[in-house]
């Protein structure tokens, strides 16, 4: 099941040129970019692992693309996303965020049903990938 989080997630995968253009758009507006990765794509897992610090003072997307590629090299089977943060007073939030790499195989989620007191039923999302230990979740199947 293809994870759809962030901007452009219903589009085909962006090429590196397209990623560079989006990063250039963000930098032209003064939004510093940062790269994050995770292997737990649960929708409520909003804080992914940071790949280095946010990149301040960049003017050209080449530096952003360089870090994306470095991160891909280190984590070829993780989700990687690019954030652009608008620090302007009155906004101060992530202005643009999109996935730049996803694992080859995305097993998706199942719905767990739990019966609690008074016959109430609670539901929870469980990613199939989470059944395997961290770091091995999206490699080739054993």
């Amino acid at each position, binding site marked *: 099941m293809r994870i759809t989080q962030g901007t452009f997630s219903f589009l085909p995968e962006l090429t590196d040129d397209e990623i560079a253009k989006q990063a250039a758009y963000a930098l*032209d507006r003064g939004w510093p970019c940062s790269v994050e990765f995770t292997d737990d794509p649960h929708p409520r897992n909003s804080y992914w692992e940071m790949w*280095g610090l946010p990149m301040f*003072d*960049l*003017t*050209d997307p*080449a*530096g952003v693309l*360089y870090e994306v590629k470095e991160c891909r090299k280190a984590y070829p089977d993780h989700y990687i996303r690019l954030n652009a943060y608008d620090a302007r007073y009155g*906004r101060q939030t992530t202005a643009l965020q999109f996935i730049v790499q996803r694992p080859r195989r995305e097993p998706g989620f199942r719905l767990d049903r739990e019966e609690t007191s008074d016959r109430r039923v609670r539901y929870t999302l469980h990613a199939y990938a989470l059944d395997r230990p961290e770091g091995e979740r999206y490699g080739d199947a054993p």
Partner: protein
Amino acid sequence: MTGRPGFGMRPAENGSPAPDPAAGEPLAPLPPDARVDLARERSDAQADEVLDALDADLVGLAPVKTRIREIAALLLVDRVRARFGIDSGRPNLHMCFTGSPGTGKTTVAVRLAELLHRLGYVRKGHLVSVTRDDLVGQYVGHTAPKTKEVLKRAMGGVLFIDEAYYLYRAENERDYGQEAIEILLQVMENQRDDLVVVLAGYKDRMDSFFASNPGMSSRIAHHIDFPDYEPDELEAIGRLMMRDEGYTLAPETEPVFRAYLDRRRARPRFANARSVRNAIERARLRHASRLVAESGEVDRAALTTLLPDDFLASRVFS
């Protein structure tokens, strides 16, 4: 802050930035029998403005100006060749500026960044000026991220490393400078599309730096030497600086100013244009305190004219 900040994609505050004239649409390929007017191409690239400004604002430096004109011509011809579909590969434009202090290395680097941007060689045309401190870390594992961050910041423009020979300290083999040099070399080789590296420093020390880092020397295509200024060039520089700051020399001050420069040149630690600037700064100080001491009425001429005394009080005349 004026008014409410824009929010989200609201066009007024947050709209598209002004279109960049140099980054025009890629031109359509030409048929093999087409003819191109190079003069038109030149004016389209607006490179002449930068070159003319270089000629007008910088005194002397003939070899530097010639080399930069040659580079401009090469990039222009490459652009036209590319339109005919002739692929000639990107020229290597990493440079090394050597010369005495105050010969205009940094100033030329700023102009160069602008010129390379106009000719479409670099995407943004900004100059990131760094020294050893910005590249080399203080403990193990600190250097690589620091150097990479600087390189990322310089991408799309020109990285100017002032006094580059400090990067390599021969007397300390555990110095982290070597690590910075290795990363620098790697990026200079692999990401030639993304940035131009300009090393600057004094001639003799740069020579020994290159002798101990042969890889660095061979990756730099242009070694440009900045000559020292002649006395009349220094005078012209002084006039240019005073004009920019709204001062003039009284007719009787001119020989004094010339004599001052001659004496200053002979003294140790003479730093060419920088010394001229300092001399003018000190003359301004004396000029101001003279006016205040006289405490009479002043007119426009008194406020802008430097008299011989403003220079004669200097210690080079003692």
